[in-house]
């Protein structure tokens, strides 16, 4: 589904604080798989995730998206031909990002002061879907994640586990083909982490592609992972040891 060919990412290029976050990574992610990116903090995991999630274009190298979905978003005539992210105009990049990917952040990044429901609906607002439809989908997600009774509660009144589920629901509201999670269990105790993995398992069964960066053994040693890749100093250590 996503193909990275010798991708590098250099921040602050040409300035004194120049910094190479990703240094020549080649990686293939297959639709429906659960891939765990493992590595210590500062290893370049997050940068790799933002490249995969089309938040950025790489400094060099190529990123290609396969599949009819990506072709539809950029209006490509030939769905069989992969979409070259590297040469894509900025506006398509955002479109791809918000129609193909759902993101779960380490800090959850939920908006305080509004309800859990509104938080979940947020990513779908600019897409032009009628509010009633978004609301219905959101409530279904709350149901399936077992937090339906918390839908109208404000974010700050939710427990950590509930917030995590709200963040997952928000990532799923646009019905993405892939879910990208950055250290999803960093702020959870082991019970909640296991609950998270149970949700991941359900999603995987439903056919969602999962890309998870984590240095939590509970996650990368989990039997759910189809592939674990290890990143250190921006380089790939174990090139996609598939199980």
């Amino acid at each position, binding site marked *: 589904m996503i193909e990275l060919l010798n991708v590098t990412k250099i921040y602050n290029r040409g300035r004194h604080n120049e910094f190479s976050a990703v240094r020549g990574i080649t990686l293939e992610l297959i639709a429906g798989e659960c891939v765990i990116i493992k590595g210590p903090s500062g290893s370049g995991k997050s940068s790799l995730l933002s490249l995969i999630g089309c938040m950025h274009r790489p400094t060099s190298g190529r990123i290609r998206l396969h599949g009819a979905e990506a072709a539809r978003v950029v209006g490509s005539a030939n769905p069989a031909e992969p979409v070259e992210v590297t040469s894509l105009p900025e506006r398509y990049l955002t479109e791809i990002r918000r129609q193909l990917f759902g993101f779960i952040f380490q800090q959850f990044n939920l908006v305080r002061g509004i309800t859990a429901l509104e938080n979940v609906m947020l990513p779908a607002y600019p897409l032009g*879907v009628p509010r009633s439809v978004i609301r219905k989908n959101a409530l279904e997600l709350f149901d399936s994640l077992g937090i339906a009774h918390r839908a109208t509660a404000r974010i700050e009144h939710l427990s950590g586990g509930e917030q995590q589920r709200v963040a997952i629901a928000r990532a799923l509201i646009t019905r993405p083909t892939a879910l990208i999670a950055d250290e999803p269990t960093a702020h959870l105790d082991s019970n909640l982490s296991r609950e998270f993995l149970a949700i991941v398992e359900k999603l995987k069964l439903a056919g969602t592609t999962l890309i998870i960066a984590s240095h939590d053994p509970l996650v990368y040693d989990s039997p759910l992972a189809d592939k674990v890749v290890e990143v250190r100093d921006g380089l790939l250590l174990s090139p996609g040891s598939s199980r």
Partner: protein
Amino acid sequence: MRTVIESQRNILDYALSGLMRRRGKTFSLILLYALVVFVLASIMFFTHAMRRESELLLSGAPELVVQRMIAGRHDPIPLEYGRGIATIRGVSRVQPRLWGYYYDSDIRANYTVQTTTDDSITRGTLAIGAGLARMRSLKKGDELSIWGYDGQPRTFQVATIFTVESDLLTTDLVLTHEADFRELFHFPMERATDLSVTVRNPREIPTVAARIAELYPDTRPITRQDILRTYAAVFDWRGGILIVMVSMALLAFVIFAWDRASGLSANEQREIGILKSIGWKTEEVLILKLWEGAIISLTAFLLGLIGGYIHVFLLSAPLFARVIKGWATLYPSFRLTPFIDYYQVAVLFVLSVFPYLLATVVPSWQAAIVDPDNAMRGSE
């Protein structure tokens, strides 16, 4: 098209729920904002309507009034001046005006006492303004005593009371017969307060005025144009310290609003970062902020404008009456004619809505162009 409308409405929904989240702040801001617009709109409506009203009312004023000045002070003018002025070419009539003031210590009010040659006022009778009649509870046929120069009261019968419609011109007026006036105030015979000159051709008024000033250098001709110009200047939108006083309040508000709108709180900044990270485009974030600004400023503008109109034209500007009234006890009761200057309304709109929009959107720009992966990088 449908998607565009739907997404705009979704964003508007979210902007509203964001404002409701800060309910107290939002409502107090709208209220304060509306109050400023209300005061400005009231001043605008009031001064413009007063200006047009005085223009129409005083279009009936004498074409030319000739005063005599002695040592820079207004002094009774000899009637022979009038006879001289009558010979100037173009002058059709010269009419001596006798007028002055009378202080009524009972109700602590100043009257304007003036004579008329009108048949309706005979010796011993008066025509009085509606305000005066109201203050002294006088009806037609009642008697009114006026103290003369010698400390003795004279009693007059009220023959006419002016209608309330004419209050703006006549509220404090006491019209008397000329003989009564002279007797009451011991006004010298062969003198008048000033002369009212009628000119056959209005275009000749400046020429006649110049001729009068030439013939009688100690006089000061005041044309109707001068009168109109004086009132235009008085009610000029820019004229009047009121605007200056209000601009202080306005300035304070602008600073407050600027601070409110432009200083993005850490929370707002965080919110924008989250929106970007979950796939909102920069322009969508700006549209959100634009809506937020528009909701506040547009609502406040409409409320203020409507309030101003009601205050000035339906309630006769009670807040200004207190100010303009000052120490005067006699104040005309008048309902202003709703003359509206649409240009001024447009200026008010632009001045009150646009700066606020700008102050909300521009600082958000800074926050909205952050990279969408900021949220992710912050976590590493």
